[in-house]
């Protein structure tokens, strides 16, 4: 296992996320149809298609431009809340990687933290509000903790994915306070948040992708 993350690893991670989403997109739409407009799976599919197209087309080598292109491509998805938030995640990660062509695990954790901060600049949603934030925050926190504790990147991503999954699962008991689902108020309780589920699937994909490469 290399000490730094290169373009190849990141590409595997991103493709891993796309693979997980593609497998589960129908479930994602079903979740969204309870309190939202039922398009979350379709939107995520388009986001992942754009992501892969961006990877394939990305001319500039280097993590920073790769993540910029991926983020911009996901922003380009006409997808309601998802495109802007997930696109911002990658755009902000890209910004944080200024001058870091081969980040070590700590630098990678910092990039994810910057990504989260970028997302949080776009939405006031907090943990507990039943949004993708409920998966993203614990995932990034677990990544940081593992890295600080000496984990390698694969192990840290595994822990992040587990934390994201738990965070997503916990949204089932919550009432939505952001997004379309907030309109159905207490009726949103009992269904897992689609956006949080997507984030959890993407972290699983990051982990699996990094693992196959290792």
């Amino acid at each position, binding site marked *: 296992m290399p000490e730094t993350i290169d373009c190849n690893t990141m590409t595997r991670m991103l493709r891993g996320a796309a693979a997980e989403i593609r497998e589960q997109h129908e479930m994602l739409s079903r979740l969204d149809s309870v309190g939202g*407009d039922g398009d979350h799976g*379709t939107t995520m599919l388009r986001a992942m298609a754009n992501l892969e197209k961006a990877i394939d087309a990305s001319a500039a080598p280097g993590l920073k431009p790769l993540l910029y292109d991926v983020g911009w491509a996901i*922003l380009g998805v*006409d997808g*309601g809340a998802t495109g*802007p938030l997930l*696109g*911002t995640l990658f755009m902000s990660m890209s910004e944080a990687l200024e001058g870091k062509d081969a980040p070590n695990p700590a630098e990678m954790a910092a990039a994810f933290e910057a990504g989260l901060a970028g997302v949080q600049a776009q939405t006031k949603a907090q943990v507990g509000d039943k949004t993708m934030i409920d998966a993203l925050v614990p995932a990034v926190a677990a990544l940081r903790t593992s890295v600080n504790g000496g984990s390698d990147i694969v192990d840290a991503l595994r822990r992040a994915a587990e934390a994201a999954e738990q965070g997503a699962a916990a949204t089932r008991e919550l009432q939505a306070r952001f997004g379309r689902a907030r309109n159905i108020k207490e009726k949103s309780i009992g269904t897992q948040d689609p956006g949080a589920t997507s984030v959890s699937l993407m972290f699983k994909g990051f982990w699996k992708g990094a693992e196959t490469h290792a």
Partner: protein
Amino acid sequence: MAMKKLINDPANLVPELLEGFALANAGKVALQGSNLVVRTSPKSKDKVALVTLGGSGHEPALSGFVGEGMLDISVPGEIFAAPGPPRVIEALRLANREAGVLLIVLNHAGDIMSAKIAMDMAKKEGLNVKQVLTHEDISSGSRENPDDRRGLVGCLAVIKAAGAAAEQGHSLDECLAIAERMERNMATLAVAVSGATHPCTGDVIAEIPEDVMVVGMGQHGEAGGGTQSLKTADETADIMLPVLLEDIQAKPGDELLVMLNGVGSTTLMELYLVLRRIKQILEGKGITLARSLVGEYLTVQEMGGFQMCVARLDEELKALWDAPSNAPALTVK
């Protein structure tokens, strides 16, 4: 009942409908760049430009409001989905001018996020852009929590007023002030009587039982309010109008604009009955029905129901409402 729509491959629905829309209104609007809807005869550069964004599937909104006296550019998204920030910033760059650009954003999660990212970029790039948010749906939040209020058909009145002001040479700050005044002056409530299907997925957007109507349903079938037994036209007006009047604190002597926006399959016939009743109620309160607009402006596919929007007009807003427009969805001579 399964979906019965005359469409082709759902994956191409939006580009195809935009192509047809531009054809149907050739000489007024055209497509430019990444399917931005623009005027064929652009406004002179010394006047403020108006840009908006929003999901498709609500035809004629929002691109039908592009035209002299209204919008300069609309950025249509996918069906019921806001366009992403890249096309919004593309539109802002295209509209950019010294006089400035006013971005009109309807309060829906996707739209405000796309707008925010594009506005952040615009600021970094030094573009002269300001934003107005429309959020007049009284069913989804109180006046004290305007963030919760969705933007419904009221955007039309805001675009009309600010668009006319821009055409008359008002500055960006003046256009913004006019847009915000119209926005503050208005309130909307929707009623749905029958559902619709998503043209791409075939999913039912809102399932409304027989003999039931839902007051306060959002633009995409999100439930938001009171399920009750189906009422007559008069009774429906009697339920909806008073809460709207209370929200804008209408007083005797006020002059109102009333818009009745059919969302799909509800007939003009029905909307005329509702307007008739509104006039009676207003007369009883000493309020003037100064202007009205009845038709389909912001639809939700074949959904049954309508949005009732009331707005208090002052002399300036009245004149701006009456100003000419050649937008496909609202021609005013």
